Each structure stands twice: as C-alpha cells, then as structure tokens.
C-alpha cells in the first residue's frame, strides 16, 4: 500500500498532519523542543498573546482533579512586542507551521494584534481565543455572546487574508450557533473546546484551591464533553473543526475525527508526555494501515448514528 497521507486542509491552510499542539500548553516552543522534534508536528499554536504583556494570576494557579486539572494562569504572556522580537525568531527555526493564538479584552485589541502579526511571514494563521475562562475582561464575556463572537470574527477577517480559527467556549448552551456565526463572518475553522469552568476546595480550610477561585478544567475528564461539542458542530455547521479536549493518545484522536474533527489539538498531555504529539502521528498512520485507508479524510465525520 502507498504511504499514508495524513495531510489535512483547514480553509486554505494545508497541514502535513492533523496533530496540533494547543495554545498555552507549549509556550512558544523553546522549552518543549528539548524533548521532542517539533518539525514533525502538524502545527504549533502559541500561548495566547495580548497587545500588552500580562503578568497572570497569583499562585496557586493549578490543581489536579480526578483525571484532569484546573488552571487559572490568567493569560500570562510576554505581550505582542516581545513576542515579535524574541519569540518569533525561535519559532522560525523549528520548521513547523506556526499558528498564533490571540487574546484580547476589546475588539480593537484583537484587530490591532492581528494587523501587526499579519506582517510576520512565519505566522501561517490565527487562532482567536474568545473563550478564556480566567480573565476578568474579554475571555468568556465574549465567548458566550453570539454578537461579540460575530463582530470579532468580522473585524479580524477584514485585516488579514491568513486563515482564521475561532476557539470556542464549551461554557455555552448551543456551541453550534457560535460555530455558525464564525463561519458566516468568514472564519476558516473553529477549535472546540477551550476549558470548562470548574473549581475545587480544601475541605480543612474551606478555601478554594485556586487563587482565582475558578479555573479551566482540562485533561481526560473533559473528553466526552469535547466530543459531544464537536459532534454538535459537525451535525449543524459546515466548517472544519479542530477537536481539542482530553486527548491523550491516537485512539482519542481517531475518536474526535470520527465525531467530525478535521484536525486535533493536544494540550494537557504535553505536560505529562512531551512526545505525545509524535506518538499520536505514528498511531494515526498505523490505524490507517489497519483500516486499509489511504487518507484520513475517510474517517472525518464518519460517525454512524441511529437513524
């Protein structure tokens, strides 16, 4: 049989394989590159960058929960200027496709960041984070407001021809409505899902375990929720979906593709197994061989639902 083709398309962005590293879980690439060969990865999505640097939340920022973790990092990042000056040069070297994730607390800020980064050849696309649960302004205020998500997509679309991915929040009633508005306003794809709002308490002190009180839940605990959200979008809106939430291995990745994802992102697993991306790519190849298929397109949205 011929070599398996893992190539996927997200709008006019072609990726050598469908395995992406999720925003906020690989920094800007430098640290994880000591443990894995990033040039083999489909794409790297940078930590959310905002116009100005953000300090982030005080400790404690993370806590482990049953099969998952809560984080309230608070979008700590170096800010646009330092990102361009200091982080992009390294990202150039690693020879992977770079997608820049942008977070903002106003529509103008999203537009401003996109404009500046549009000039950077190394950045092949944008993921617009309208769904961070851990900051006061922006974040979820946008993420569960249909009009805001539509407006942001429209305004960002107006200033770049590069692919735009809208990263959706699961903390809404009907995620497919948000995917629809993103599509209507010109987004090339959607990512589903960002983290779910959660909390945890210390039973001896009565205090929340995270300084921010609530955090975003990620890891295997959220996989069934993420899968259901991907399926909902897939059944209702014709737009490429990047599935994300609790993927630990290639089997999880296949499951997301069956549910409708064209590509997948891995987040929390990078903290535990920095090689996970490469292992998933190998696993997908073997799966295709065993299923005797030559292209992943055959499994995307191949779900068989009761009629």
């Amino acid at each position, binding site marked *: 049989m011929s070599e398996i083709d893992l190539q996927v398309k997200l709008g006019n962005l072609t990726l050598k394989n469908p395995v992406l590293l999720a925003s906020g879980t690989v920094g800007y690439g430098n640290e994880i590159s000591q443990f894995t060969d990033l040039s083999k990865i489909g794409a790297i999505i940078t930590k959310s960058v905002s116009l100005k640097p953000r*300090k982030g939340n005080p*400790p404690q920022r993370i806590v482990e929960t049953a099969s998952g*973790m809560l984080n309230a990092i608070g979008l700590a990042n170096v800010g646009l200027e330092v990102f361009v000056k200091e982080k992009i040069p390294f990202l150039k070297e690693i020879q992977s496709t770079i997608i820049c994730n942008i977070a903002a607390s106003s529509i103008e800020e999203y537009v401003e960041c996109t404009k500046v980064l549009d000039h950077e050849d190394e950045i092949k696309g944008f993921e617009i984070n309208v769904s961070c649960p851990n900051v006061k302004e922006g974040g979820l205020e946008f993420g569960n407001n249909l009009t805001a998500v539509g407006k942001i997509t429209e305004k960002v679309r107006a200033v770049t021809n590069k692919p735009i991915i809208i990263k959706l929040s699961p903390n809404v009633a009907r995620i497919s409505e948000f995917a629809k508005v993103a599509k209507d306003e010109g987004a090339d794809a959607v990512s589903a899902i960002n983290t779910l709002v959660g909390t945890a308490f210390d039973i001896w002190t009565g205090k929340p375990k995270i300084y921010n009180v609530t955090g975003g839940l990620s890891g295997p605990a959220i996989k069934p929720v993420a899968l259901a959200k991907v399926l909902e979008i897939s059944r209702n809106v014709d737009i490429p979906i990047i599935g994300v939430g609790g993927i630990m291995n290639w089997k999880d990745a296949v499951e997301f593709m069956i549910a409708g994802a064209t590509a997948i992102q891995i987040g929390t697993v990078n903290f535990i197994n920095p090689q996970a991306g490469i292992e998933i790519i190998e696993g997908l190849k073997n799966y295709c061989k065993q299923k005797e298929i030559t292209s992943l397109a055959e499994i995307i949205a191949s779900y068989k639902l009761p009629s």
Partner: protein
Amino acid sequence: MINEKIIVQSLEKLQPNIYLMKAKAPVIASQVKPSQFCNIKVSDNDFPLLRRPFSVCDVQGDSIFFMFDVHGEGTRILSEKMIGDEIEVLGPLGNGFNYNKKFNKALIIAGGLGVAPFPFLTKVLIDKVEIVSLIGGRNKNYVVKYGLKNVSVATDDGSEGYKGTVLDLLEANKESLIDDGTIIFSCGPTPMLKALQKFAEQNNVECQLSTECAMACGFGICQGCPVHSSTEDKYLLVCKDGPVFDSKEIVL
C-alpha cells in the same frame, strides 16, 4: 534534560513514613546538580494524571536517589515500587544551588522533607568548605540525617534535639554559626523559608532558597508555578527560573 526510563534498584524505609529510592539513571546522573529536580510519572496509566516533582537527593555513579514521604496517591504508588520496575522521569530540571563562588562555610537549613537535596550538596561540597546542617521536623519520626554532615536537630515536640523550630535553633546560635564567608542553603516549607528570608536580611548573610510550588509540566510550558519577583513587577517560574532563588530575588 531527558525523559529517561529509570530502573528501581532499591527502596529503603528511613523512617516510618519516609523512603529512599535508588534507581539506575545514567543520563540524569551524569547531568544533575544539587537541588535540581525530576518530574516523575509515578504510574504507567493516566492516574494520577500529572507527574510529581522530586529533588534528586543523591548521586552514586550511574544511580540517582529520591527521598520522599507518603502523603497522597502519587507518593503512595512510588512507595510500592519493586526492584526492577521502570519509571519515566523527566530531568534534570530547574537550576540548582550556586556554589561556584568564594565562601568557606555552607550552612544548611532544612525543614521536614526539605532535607532531600542536601545529601548531594554535601557530597559535592565536602572537600571544599565547612558544612554545618540544621534540620527540623515535627517529631523524631520526621528527622532524616541520611547523607548529611555536622547535624543539629530541632523538633517541634522536643522528641529529638532542640525543642522548637529550626529557625529558633538558628536564632539561638547565630553568633557561632554565621561569619563573613557563610552561605545559607535552605529548603523546606514556605513559612520556614519566609522566616529565613527575614533572618538573612537582618543578619546580612547570603541565602539561597530551594522553593516549592504545585507544578504541571516542570519545564516551563504551563506557567503553573509562579513566584513573585522582588525586583520587578512580574512572576518568575519555580520550575524554570528556580527552584533555587537568592532570598533577595523573590517575594514569598
């Protein structure tokens, strides 16, 4: 830095609840410096999900040692490992103590399992400088002198050594313990480090603190382990910028 599969060679009980694990880890053993740490995948499945950070306690040839007390699921699993078991370990991580400078006395101050990094530091410094170790524990079952030199003990209940905290012990003897060429190397619970930070400032002595924080990745990608800088309005990362900081560098 590597994700190395290490092999358990022995697991010894030092105290009712405190263990010392020796494991074959040629790569980490050849790279590690005192007070660097490793992030250990305690199980080979997804439970518990996150790795657990532990200081490298000692190095002998190809082998590294970890010292830990059992208090949660992760340390319980580690305490049940058998000789020959493989464990996935990321390391060495962080930066260690800074002893490549002129000084003539290392004053080690450790609280509880904060003694863990010091057998290795002691081994590295033993022929170079005078070493004095002050260690504190809740009671005599929490006192571990393994690999240390010139040890004085403080226990909260007085069941061994001085009755009181290790800081009380230090304060009571500071004239004889501290001179111009002394560096304090310390590791332990945050309240202890905080008190020591104040002590170091008041007594004008160089002090390096090995800090702790909940961690996910251990190598700088999750931003989960902040400690506030004392010189700039920003957070440093315990895993990458630390775990050792000069006591003047951070706000605890």
